[in-house]
């Protein structure tokens, strides 16, 4: 397979509602930014680009079937090859990876990936209904279908299994909202305390309104290319583009219904799901004890799809010590609890250690005062952008937004794009992006690395 470079991106302003523009015009906003960053105008980019991949989640939200072609049309990509991908909340991450495949396979040299969602077309409670239609409509939705409820059930089990506390969850909310304080693209830029998070209105016990991302309108796009494509873009733009290579992708799946998730044995976990950094005697003893106390994998507390996506991506990128080798992660924190669950899936800590890890400080940014007493130094900032909780979650755009922020981190260009250097991870060389659907049904993980 050929090397794939992620060279630029653009993100529209995310907001609760963007009635000022239609969704194709929002895509145009993100696209114009991405090509301007390459120093190329549209007619020239059109000449160079080989194909596009479009990403949006819901025909219900868009109130428009085949919406992708309208974006393709509006931004002036006709008659280039294109297709739309859909995989719930992971739609953007899947889009990024399909663009990667187009380049890696030799099908294309330059690909534009774009995604969008217009969730303000309906009121929040109707939006919750649309999202809940992405659970089994025979057996899940009619019982009281509500995604926050599904995630709250997962965390109730996480709390019972491992002693995870709502205050540990709240650390994630404080971190991500405060990171977003320095990100002009973010929807919610707030300085919060643990008490603020816990005192917010309860949505689905134990998750409060500040544990949960909000609905958004927005668009994002990235430009991916081969080495030949890179040369063409540099020639057209008359500038050197910092090398950010996508060194590994991975994807996993799991049952639509939470209730169908398996409860595997210790032996099967080690046979199918364990990461290289869990193969040591200490980890084996730790997990043996968990199993002896009734832990089963993945159950409803863990995302096997996220683990398998991580495992595959790490294998491709040659990562054996995620916490030591990855400089930052942009992960799918639709809920504070799912960020904690994802620390474990991605091997930043072991299963069961996500709560203490969240409160340890390891996932926080250096140089930012969170007003918290954190025992450990930052080791691998998670969601330095503010994540979904603070940036917003216009579903089809979200995974691409993560890619854009990761590209900017690795280009050491956060100050240029945010107008504020606070969120630049120092000397960032390796970043992971993680996009997640449903109750953990599709999960993509992609590794991006800076090359000098």
């Amino acid at each position, binding site marked *: 397979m050929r090397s794939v470079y992620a060279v630029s991106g653009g993100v529209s302003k995310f907001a609760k509602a963007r*009635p*000022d*523009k239609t969704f194709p015009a929002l895509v145009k906003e993100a696209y114009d930014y991405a090509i301007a960053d390459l120093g190329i105008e549209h007619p020239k980019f059109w000449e160079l680009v080989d194909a596009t991949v479009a990403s949006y989640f819901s025909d219900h939200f868009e*109130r428009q079937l085949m919406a992708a072609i309208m974006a393709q049309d509006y931004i002036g990509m006709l008659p280039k090859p294109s297709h739309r991908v859909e995989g719930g909340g992971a739609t953007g991450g899947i889009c990024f990876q399909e663009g990667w495949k187009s380049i890696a396979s030799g099908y294309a040299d330059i690909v534009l990936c774009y995604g969008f969602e217009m969730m303000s077309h309906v*009121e929040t*409670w*109707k939006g*919750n*209904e649309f*999202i*809940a239609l992405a659970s089994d*409509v*025979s*057996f*899940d939705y*009619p*019982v*009281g*279908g*509500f995604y*926050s*409820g*599904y995630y*709250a*059930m*997962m965390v*109730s*089990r996480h*709390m*019972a299994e491992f002693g995870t506390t709502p205050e540990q969850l709240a650390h994630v909310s404080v971190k991500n909202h405060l990171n977003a304080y320095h990100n002009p693209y973010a929807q919610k830029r707030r300085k919060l305390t643990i008490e603020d998070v816990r005192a917010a*209105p*309860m*949505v*689905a*016990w*134990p*998750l409060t309104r500040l544990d949960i991302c909000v609905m958004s309108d927005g668009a994002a796009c990235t430009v991916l290319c081969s080495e030949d494509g890179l040369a063409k873009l540099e020639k057209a733009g008359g500038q050197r583009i910092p090398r950010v290579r996508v060194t590994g992708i991975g994807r996993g799946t799991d*049952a639509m*219904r*939470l*209730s*169908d*998730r*398996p*409860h595997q044995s210790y032996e099967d976990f080690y046979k199918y799901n364990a990461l290289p950094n869990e193969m040591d005697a200490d980890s084996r003893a730790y997990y043996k004890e968990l199993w002896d106390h009734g832990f089963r994998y993945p159950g*409803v*507390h863990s995302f096997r799809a996220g683990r398998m996506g991580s495992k595959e991506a790490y294998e491709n990128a040659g990562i054996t010590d995620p916490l030591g080798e990855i400089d930052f992660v942009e992960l799918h924190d639709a809920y504070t609890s799912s960020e904690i669950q994802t620390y474990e899936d991605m091997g930043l800590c072991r299963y069961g250690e996500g709560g203490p890890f969240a409160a340890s400080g390891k996932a926080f940014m250096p140089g930012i005062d969170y007003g918290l007493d954190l025992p450990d130094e930052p080791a691998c900032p998670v969601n330095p952008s503010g994540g979904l909780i603070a940036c917003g979650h216009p579903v089809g755009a979200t995974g691409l937004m993560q890619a854009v922020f990761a590209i900017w981190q690795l280009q050491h260009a956060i100050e240029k794009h945010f107008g504020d250097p606070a969120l630049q991870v120092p000397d960032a060389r390796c970043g992971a992006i993680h996009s997640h659907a449903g109750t953990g049904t599709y999960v993509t993980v992609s590794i991006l690395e800076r090359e000098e």
Partner: protein
Amino acid sequence: MSDKELPKKMEETMEGTVVFGVPFPTGDDLSALKEMAPIVVKQPYASTYNYSYGQDSPFFAALANKRFIVSREPETGYTYATPRGHDMYTGKETEWVEIKPEGHIHAFTVCHFGSEEFLPQCPYVLALIEFEGVNTLFLARLIGVDPYEASTDWIGMKVKGRFLRNSKFKPTDVYFYPAE
């Protein structure tokens, strides 16, 4: 061409008309339109589906008869609390087996907010129920607990199922309550 008089004007009706006198530049200068606020209109959309439960239909027939059936892989015995026509490991067709709807709470939440359809029922309790000898869980409503006293102590609680007398042909035709 016939001599018949054909209409030259669309007939005007009043339905759908909600605003009169929409502001607009009166002269030739249209540059102010770029500053115009967006127009947002209400567009209702509703549909009724003829939705088939397909191979899962017997489960709903069982609930209507106050019986609870689950799906079992005949050779391995792997049993799904939520119906499934085929086993995901062997690929074989499952068989229906009746069990007592009695089990324990595996995980739960209290929804204080929800989808539009369920908002009037808030707060309501969702629980994943585990059954002895069954490998997977069943999502159900739980009653008989105080929604304002939620606690992880509820996990492991013994619960029993009860059936609605008037079946709605939904999985909520069975609901659970604390057994003690």
